[in-house]
């Protein structure tokens, strides 16, 4: 069974105001230690299991912040340890202010063939408000460099629903990107996570966010605008020109297996979900002691019923929706009558609709997808 690999690089110049990821700007001086541990984690895993690698995703933090030699060492270790004859996609996340020609060349040489830029918005005022460390100009420069190095698979992240943002601002963001010959856009609604500076500012009443109706309008109009420029929605927040869907992320929604290496990385493997420690010292310490860097007691075994639910919930996030035949192949039986009944109810509520292959969420269904999934959860 082909397995995907996720690598986590937990270093950033500074933390963005909305971020609740595992990233530690202050620990940048511990890079060397970290990558030693990361390589060892891979070696230790290999001792138990070989992997036939499908895709690799290098995320963070800011992977482009560290010296590219570290990235190379990790990829080399992966290639040494596992079967990597047919890797379809290797992605790396980058921040516009850390992109250099030298790095791009090196990344390409390592086999990285998909580049993701965290832009969020083309409006410098908004960028500052949410704590990003780059400008739109720096972003344009990054794209220029990538193009000049003949990179053909670029993703840009956009976030809408920012404080003081209007629908027009969002459309402008999309229109500007459309001029740049990029292949993939991730289009996220800003979610305030507890404990982040933006969350606290909001509690104090210092921020003015779009109201619910405006936010949904941004999303709906955004989808239309993106479609106008050839970016077809294939998942709730992901849009791509034909054939440029992100293979690695589809693994999550198709409930295919993946292993996460690095601080706080998540895995879904042999019907178990588990994740590494997100405490820096604990992660490194456990690997140094030749122990797995995760809490064994927290490993979640996904039983049959749960597998079915996850399959439904995650596949429905994609526009291709639930493919009945594929479901039957995967689970060796027909979809239960109980579920079919729920689907009918959801169709009545106009949240789900039938397709040639099965079912998918309507636009309203996407807007209220948590309600849909809750209903499906038995």
């Amino acid at each position, binding site marked *: 069974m082909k397995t995907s690999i*996720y690598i986590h690089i937990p270093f950033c110049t500074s933390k963005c105001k909305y971020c609740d990821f595992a990233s530690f700007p202050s620990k940048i001086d511990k890079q060397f230690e970290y990558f030693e541990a990361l390589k060892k984690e891979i070696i230790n895993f290999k001792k138990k299991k070989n992997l036939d690698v499908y895709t690799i995703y290098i995320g963070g933090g800011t992977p482009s912040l560290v010296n590219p030699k570290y990235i190379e060492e990790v990829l080399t270790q992966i290639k040494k340890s596992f079967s990597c004859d047919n890797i379809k996609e290797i992605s790396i996340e980058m921040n516009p202010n850390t992109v250099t020609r030298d790095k791009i060349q090196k990344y390409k040489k390592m086999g990285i063939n998909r580049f993701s830029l965290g832009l969020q918005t083309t409006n410098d005022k908004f960028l500052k408000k949410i704590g990003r460390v780059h400008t739109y100009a720096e972003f344009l420069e990054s794209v220029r460099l990538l193009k000049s190095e003949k990179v053909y698979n670029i993703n840009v992240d956009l976030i809408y629903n920012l404080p003081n943002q209007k629908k027009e601002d969002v459309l402008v963001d999309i229109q500007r990107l459309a001029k740049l010959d990029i292949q993939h856009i991730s289009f*996220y*609604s800003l*979610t305030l996570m507890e404990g982040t500076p933006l969350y606290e500012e909001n509690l104090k009443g210092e921020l003015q966010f779009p109201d*619910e*109706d405006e*936010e*949904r309008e941004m999303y709906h109009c955004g989808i239309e605008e993106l479609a106008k420029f050839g970016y077809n929605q294939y998942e*709730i*927040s992901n849009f791509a020109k034909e054939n440029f869907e992100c293979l690695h*992320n589809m693994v*999550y*929604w198709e409930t295919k297996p*993946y292993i*996460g290496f690095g601080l*706080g*990385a*998540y*895995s*879904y493997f042999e019907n178990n*979900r588990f*994740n590494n420690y997100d405490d820096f010292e604990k992660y490194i310490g456990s690997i140094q002691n030749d122990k797995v860097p995760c809490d064994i007691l927290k490993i*979640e075994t996904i039983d049959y019923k749960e597998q079915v*639910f*996850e399959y439904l*919930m*995650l596949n429905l*996030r994609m526009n291709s929706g639930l493919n009945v035949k594929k479901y039957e192949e995967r689970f060796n039986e027909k979809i239960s009558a109980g579920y079919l009944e729920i689907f009918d109810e959801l169709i009545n*509520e106009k949240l789900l609709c039938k397709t040639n292959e099965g079912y998918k969420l309507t636009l309203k269904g*996407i*807007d*209220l*997808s*948590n*309600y849909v*999934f*809750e209903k499906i*959860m038995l």
Partner: protein
Amino acid sequence: MSKENKQKWIRNFSIIAHIDHGKSTLADRLIEKTGLLTQREMKEQVLDNMDLERERGITIKLQTIRLVYKAKDGNEYILNLIDTPGHVDFTYEVSRSLAACEGAILIVDAAQGIEAQTLANTYLALDQNLELMPVINKIDLPSARPDEIKLEIEDVIGLDTEGIPLISAKNGTNIEDVLEAVVENIPEPTGDVDAPFKALIFDSYYDTYRGVIVDVRVVDGSVKVGDKIKMMASGREFEVTEVGFFAPGMVSTKELSTGEVGYLTASMKDVRDAKVGDTITTVKNGATEPLDGYKEVNSMVYCGIYPAEGEDYNNVRDALEKLQVNDAAFIFEPETSVALGFGFRCGFLGLLHLEIIQERLEREFDLDIITTAPGVIYKIMKTDGTMMELQNPSNLPPVQEIEYMEEPMVEASIMSPTDYVGQIMDLCQNKRAVFKNMEYMEETRVILHYEIPLNEVIYDFFDALKSKTKGYASLDYELKGYKQSKLVKLDVLINKELVDAFSIIVHEEKAYERGRMIAERLKEVIPRHMFAVPIQASVGTKVVARETVRALRKDVLAKCYGGDISRKKKLLQKQKEGKKRMRQVGSVNVPQEAFLAVLKFDEK
């Protein structure tokens, strides 16, 4: 020892204190010092043995303990410690327990000094003509200021504090002083050992093995196994099967005699056979006059109790029956509601009594129940000349059939330091209370007498009173008959459907205010649905308040990658569990909490 001398060696007393000033700890120490239980055998807080009590910090069930103390004068004394609850709903029980004593230890916190409940219960004790014995506790605290507190006691209560015990119940310091002081200062019980048997019932409870156990204070004469006794209020007769005392476990003896405190059993099946405050005497040659102070307890507050799941009906009924066995003031009978199905209409002494029963049903019997708005009994004079009693607002006859309505009135006595009279008068004004008069007890203390409709008192009057007077005021009220009133039924409609469980009877003047509060409260607790949910409060066809719960527009997770999946599932799981505690009213999910939430009116 002859019978007469026995009284000399008895001391009957209670302990009065503000919450957390150390009553239970002192009781534990007294038990320890008198050698009944070793320190190792003692469980924490021996007297408060119900979980509920520990949490609420108030004693619900009374307990009596008999201590044997060898004093410094070389004699052995029998010290009967009687415990008491302290809430207005149970004032009658408190007064009967105090009536069984000759004195009371008044605990005052060495750091905090005299506080609200101290005063309230002190006055109760003084009203019973008890000897008050102040004790200053928690002298171990760095913030302790015993000399100042002594002065406070002298000033505010007027007791002499020369030589009073200064103790630390926590550390066991000077506990002996308390015991000596009890022996010295609390009078021995009076009573004629040769007179006909007369005993005060100050508590009774049902025990599965022995039947009803009656806590008694023998006032005159004596009682032993085999005696034929009579309850003077009901006239019912029984034969005594056991007598004894609490040490704290039950210890049976040959007889209980004048001045003693203990228990008796007499094959009684129901606590209503042994009513608190009643007098027991013998069938043959019994006493002619009962003791003072007996009162029939009446339910004043009613509400509906329904099982959250229809199939639990029998379990709820069984639990209510079990609770009733040991609670003479709790009554119930079956009723139905369109919104909630089959349930029960229950009667309580007051709101606290209601809350306690509710918590016991949920905690001890592990039941999921829904409680409707508490109300009182109204009298309705119909146009056809008949008078009906209304307990359930949904049974109100159509307006055309009603000649007039009457509501129960109470005479409320509010005792408070003079500082708060202004606030109290403001509060009462908002409660349709009519001022009767005010009397000064001492320079600093007044009693205000008001006539208030009972339905204004039952919700949160007591809590509001306490909060406006920093806890110093105390409340006592008595039913004083019915008065004609302009009353209306306030209905609640959710998504245009009448939800009968929310209906309440209110005074015409209050309809808008209450309606608005209910609508606002419901808007907060009813979750958003796929459609907008209108909430209306109405009197007849007139809508007096309206709120809307907006339709849900967005409920979506933007990012769903590797790490998000487990978290997402947990969230959905939690939301799903939350929905289980919902009640389906038409197509609207109403949380069970909503039924109770509308009752808690915040006093602004």
